Each structure stands twice: as C-alpha cells, then as structure tokens.
C-alpha cells in the first residue's frame, strides 16, 4: 500500500495535496482524493458523485459520494474551502472512468480541487506516517 510522504491525510481516508497556485482571492489551491487504502477497501469503484462545485464547505462537510459495487461512502472535506473543480475523468457528463481512482488514487484519480479557506486546519491533518499507523 502506497502512502506518499508529501501529502496530508484525514482519518476518513482522504488525502490533500497542496499546490503553488492561488485563486483570485489569494487562497491556496489543493487537490483532494481518497487513499490507496480506501480504494482497496472499497473495491472497484463504479461512480463518483460530486455536486458541490462552487460551494464553500466547512472542514468535515460531505463534498461527494463514491459508489463501489458493494458499498457507498461519503467524501469529507479535509479542511474548509471552496470546491472549484471536479476531476473531469470522473464526471459522468464527460463519460466517466471511476476506475481511475483504483488504478491511480494519488495522481490521475484526484477527485476535487479546492481553494483552502483555513490554512491552520492543515496542521490538524495526519502525516503519511500517522496515517499508515492508523490503517495498520
């Protein structure tokens, strides 16, 4: 199981990857997805629903849902922020390929891009080491 050191993690099995980009309001842009452990536990994903693009959400708010064959799982905001983009590879109007998350959870399988509202909340997230300890 892969847990890249450069990312931060939530106990709900999301990761967040910071970029150097900022939006017009000067908020830092980050990518959010689910971990290798999460995709492996869920099994083959069949649908990802994100209907929160444009919304400002609090930390731990639900920003979407993933459907696997066997189970459904909500997706939670690692930090407060605005959802600015849904990965077009996962968008059903563009002929989605949810299996990309199983195949490449940390890169091509990112789920949303957000503009971070509260940088301080990043400190509350787990390091790769802590996350690995959590999932054993």
């Amino acid at each position, binding site marked *: 199981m892969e847990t890249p050191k450069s990312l931060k993690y939530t106990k709900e099995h999301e990761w967040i990857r910071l970029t150097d980009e900022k939006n017009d309001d000067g908020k830092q842009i980050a990518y959010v997805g689910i971990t290798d452990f999460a995709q492996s536990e869920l*099994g*083959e994903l069949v649908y990802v*629903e994100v209907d929160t693009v444009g919304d400002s959400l609090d930390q731990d708010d*639900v920003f979407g849902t993933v459907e696997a064959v*066997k*189970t*459904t799982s909500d997706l939670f905001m690692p930090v407060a922020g605005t959802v600015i983009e849904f990965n077009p590879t996962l968008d059903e109007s563009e002929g989605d390929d949810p299996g990309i998350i199983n195949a490449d959870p940390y890169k091509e399988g990112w789920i949303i891009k957000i503009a971070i509202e509260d940088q301080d909340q990043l400190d509350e997230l787990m390091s790769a080491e802590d996350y690995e300890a959590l999932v054993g």
Partner: protein
Amino acid sequence: MKETVLTPVHIGLGAKMAEFAGYNMPIVYTNIQEEHHAVRKNVGVFDVSHMGEFIIRGKEALELIQLVTSNDASRLQIGQAQYSCLPNDRAGIVDDLLVYRLTEEMCSEGEHAFMLVVNASNIQKDWEWISRHNSFDTEMINISDRTGLLAVQGPNAADVLQPLTSIPLHEMKYYTFEKGVFAGVENVLVSATGYTGSGGFEIYVDNQHLMTIWEAIFKAGEHAGIVPVGLGARDTLRLEMGYCLYGNDIDDATSPLEAGLGWITKLKKDHFISVDHFRKQKEQGLEKKLVGFTVQDRRVPRHGYDIVDNDEKVIGRVTSGTLSPSLQMPIGMGYVPAEIARPGQEIHVVAGRKLLKAEIVKLPFYRETP
C-alpha cells in the same frame, strides 16, 4: 474467528478477507464484477463451508420437519432437495434453508433421514429452535463443524466437473442430488442447486477431504479458466435473481408471504408453526410486500435506505441493493405497502441528501439468454 479448512488457501490467493457469521471468509479475490461474470458466463467456485448442516433421522423425522418448516417435505423423494423456511411462532422467519431427503441405507426399518442446510449466522439459533420442537422419535446431529461445502456455479460447471465423478452431472435435474465418488473421495454429496441463478452444483464433503476436492476442481477446470469467487459476487449474483438473503430481506419479523415466499409456504399442509397466522394473513391480505426495483440514477440503493412516495413520506425500506454487474444498473429489493407493490410503480429511495427515482420491476432482474 472461525476458519474453514480453506481459509489459508484464500489468504494465499490474495483474497480480501472479512468476518462473516463468525468465519474468516473471502469477500473478493480479484474484482467482484469479474468474478460475477465468470459465474454467469463460465464457471466459478465458492467456499461456503461456513454454512450449517443438520442430520435429522428417525421414525418420525418427517413429522419433525413438517412441523418446523413451511414447505411440504412429504413431497420429497429420496435424492430430492427443497427450499423452505423455518417460521417462528410470530409469523416471522427463524431461517431459510434447504431440506434434503437422504438415502435410507444407514437407517433402520421405518426410519427416514434428512439433511437441513442452514445459514451460518443462524446455526445455533436454528439448532435450539428445532431441538425445542423435537418431541418426536427423531435424532438430530449437527455436522456443521465437520462438513465442507463448495458451490461450483456457472454454465460450464458440469463440463468441468464431469471428469471427476461417475455421477451423471449433465442429466441431474435442478434440486436433485446424488452421493458418490468425487475426485477419488467417497461419500461426496453432489447437489444440483445453488444461489446464483447460473446453474451448477453444491458439493458437500467431510472437512478432511475438502482440500483434495478443491484442488481437483481447480486442476480439472484450469483449461476452462475456472476461478475462485468470493462472497461479494455471491451477493450480486443472488440479488440479480431476487433471491432473499437472511438478515437483509427476511428476518424474525418478516413473514414469508410478505417476502414473496408464498410458494414455499404450504397453507394446505396440516400443521406447521405459525400456519394459522399465515392463513389469516392470506385471508386478510398482506400489509407489505418485498419487491425488486431498478434505480434510474448512478447512485446505488443500500440496505436500510428509506423508500418514500411522491410526497417524500416514508413507505418502506430497502433490504438489499447493489450495482448489477450483468445489467450495469443499480438494483435493489425492499418492502413497500402491498397496494403499490406492482411492476411499473414509481417509488423513490433516499440516499443521503439525494432522492433516487426507482421503478418496481418483476423479479428476477436478470434472465439467462440461451
């Protein structure tokens, strides 16, 4: 956690394991949908040794079985099996099960012998329930812990297994069984039954021979591309057929009549537990019925989701749901008021913040196209 003889084999094959009914069982080896399609189109093997088996034997074995089960076991010939359920005394279901009428070569004059195959999660409960009603000249033997069970399912099952046995597999009728030599092992019970809707066999064998049988089946099926199949695909396969799963679709509080199991609830039979309740239910009409529905959305209905009407009033509950690998659409089963339980009826399912539009359909969801 308990293990089957094959648990280490599943782990060695890289299966994702999980606790099921107290056993460490394989949920998926590679991919639920691939395993599902293997059973629908070719052949796959399930280790379902966690299932429970009771032998009921004696002069009044039939009387005991007739009392505790809802189907009519007097119709069973030797070599036939029957789907049935154990009603409780409140018109609910203790368990659903298979009743096998065994050969009588081990019996004394005038005795009959049956095997009951019950759900793993209910072994203890069923045993106590049936024992409590056994005021008959009948012996009960719990062989669950020493009996292994493999389900070899799919259209190519007979072709793959035939070289391993002289039992004429292609000629066996659905819900019949034979005991014989299988892969060199004597006294193997081969049953033309299953929980997938794709045909095949269930093979009961003493645990000491389970590994031999497993290995022989995979060797015999290698050229055909036989694969191991986990409980994940077992659930999608049974749900596409509209088969009930105990604990999801039926339980201590659901009536077999409500669950669409009227065909195994023989109200004309003299007497069995709760028969008066069932007769009354039939006479007065049912309040709710178990139906199948398809969802016109990519979201999947799940056990426990509410079913609502057009005014978003809760009218029922989803009991099972999945993405159907064969149909590539979400399907589910659930209880709805009897007056709307008809194909074509629109209902809605509450998935978190979202309302999914669904339509009641006739079961099974999936039919084999020859």
